[in-house]
């Protein structure tokens, strides 16, 4: 039986007219890599700021390794690593000065926990005397991660570390997170990129301050209730319009070069679908059945108001 690393119970927070968080409850186990998935404005940053003791909630409570975020701020700050969404380092200090600053702030040294950051910091070492403000985006991100880890936190909390980062660098960043997890550190990470959900042990879908669903990625996609078809045609616009006009279609969205389509009527077979497309003079359609993606499921849950 694993212990709970992050306990979030019925958290609510309101800013004037906006309900940023509405009764959010999440349990993250020790050693887990947990993803908060949702678009801008879903409440991800508000939730994270409460967990790292920068904000207080209006209602509900949150505990990190048993410590309450209202009563034990100082103790929590010692055992968490926090990487905010915006670049958080001192741009006028060099790479190495930033790292030693954070080490000293946490009463440790770079040497003491060097093994934890070595594989990441090795890539920065050639530029250790460069001012951090003059680093590329990818390097800034790696340095920020090193600074968040320098005191070997028990829980690492990252707010949208991959937003605005290209697809290749995003993959690299997730590999680093998996290495950190393998050292026994619990990780809570937020992201607006749905495809990153598959790289987490469990995820929470957040939308409009509410939890849409919490589960493993494979159980989440299991919530998509219909057989999903992926259809491709040169006449993409006509294909979309023709399918949206069919009353049996319950779901129809573009995914790259394919259109993902589902029917609330379970009996729709490939044959009937092909005949319908032919009736709309779409004769080149390539149709395959596919398992739903995380993004299909998020859209389904958004549209069907399945919030808990």
């Amino acid at each position: 039986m694993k212990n709970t690393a992050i306990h979030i119970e019925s958290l609510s927070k309101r800013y004037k007219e906006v309900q940023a968080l509405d009764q959010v409850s999440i349990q993250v186990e020790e050693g887990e890599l947990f993803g908060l998935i949702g678009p801008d404005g879903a409440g991800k940053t508000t939730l994270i700021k409460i967990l790292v003791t920068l904000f207080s909630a209006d209602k509900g409570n949150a505990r990190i390794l048993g410590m309450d975020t209202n009563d034990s701020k100082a103790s929590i700050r010692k055992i968490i690593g926090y990487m905010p969404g915006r670049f958080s380092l001192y741009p006028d200090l060099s790479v190495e000065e930033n790292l030693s600053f954070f080490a000293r702030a946490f009463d440790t040294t770079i040497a003491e926990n060097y093994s934890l950051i070595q594989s990441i910091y090795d890539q920065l070492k050639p530029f250790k005397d460069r001012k951090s403000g003059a680093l590329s985006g990818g390097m800034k991100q790696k340095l920020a991660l090193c600074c968040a880890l320098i005191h070997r936190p028990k829980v690492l909390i990252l707010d949208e570390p991959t937003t605005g980062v290209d697809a290749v660098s995003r993959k690299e960043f997730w590999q680093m997170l998996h290495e950190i997890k393998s050292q026994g550190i619990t990780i809570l990470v937020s992201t607006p990129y749905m495809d990153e959900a598959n790289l987490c042990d469990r995820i929470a879908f957040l939308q409009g301050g509410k939890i849409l669903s919490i589960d493993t990625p494979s159980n989440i996609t299991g919530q998509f209730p219909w057989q999903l078809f992926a259809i491709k045609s040169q006449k993409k616009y006509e294909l979309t319009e023709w399918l949206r006009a069919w009353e049996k279609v319950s779901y129809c969205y573009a995914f790259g070069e394919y259109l993902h389509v589902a029917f609330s009527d379970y009996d729709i077979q490939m044959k009937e679908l092909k005949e319908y497309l032919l009736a709309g003079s779409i004769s080149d359609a390539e149709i395959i059945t596919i398992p739903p993606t995380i993004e299909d499921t998020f859209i389904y849950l958004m549209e069907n108001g399945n919030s808990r």
Partner: protein
Amino acid sequence: METVVKVNQLTKKFGSFIATNAISFEVKKGEIFGFLGANGAGKTTAMRMLSGLLTPSSGQASVAGFDVSTQAELVKQNIGYMSQKFSLYEDLTIQENIDFYGGVYGLSRQEKKDRSNDIVSKFQLETVIHKLVRTIPLGWKQKLAFALALIHKPKVVFLDEPTGGVDPITRRQFWDLIYEAAHDGVTIFITTHYMDEAEYCDRVSIMVDGLIKALGTPSELKTSFQVDSMDAVFQLLARGTANKI
């Protein structure tokens, strides 16, 4: 078909660093052109040159019929631009933002009124037109920013990661707007980190270390690299060397 963006050997050097290295391509009227590349590959430098904000070191480019080196002001007046931050005035109402952008682009009183009515009816903003922009949902801000980038009817609009952070439904609705604008003859020049969106473009270029390493329709690129998605094409190409630093 009319060529709206014409780029020939366009180069920008910062000291000894070549951010954009003799790139050449053309974009036609009404085309959706995806401009991809890893962070640091030189996309932003190229976009800034094409929008008249940065003078090239060498090479030429004409945008909407004007030379980016010698007619930068005319380029700026004849293009639309929307950044990921949307550049809306959060403390002004929707109406005030429309009036402001109409004024900046020198529209007459009547034109301003007409465009304003068009935007309001198209996006059904009647009930919120006098609300401060900071109080409206992100998806609406995004649509408003796009409408304002088009308020002076530019021939080409530059969209710099316009869909970052929005929910998956809003993201797709935004692409409906892009298709509609392209259908009306506006040339779309767009950057994105969502590789599924690369598939929605008519043609795509991929920049690596200041060079255009691939250029073609999504299906041409997938065929030539023998992979089945633009994500795979990007993963094969995009990791250069300069952007490591």
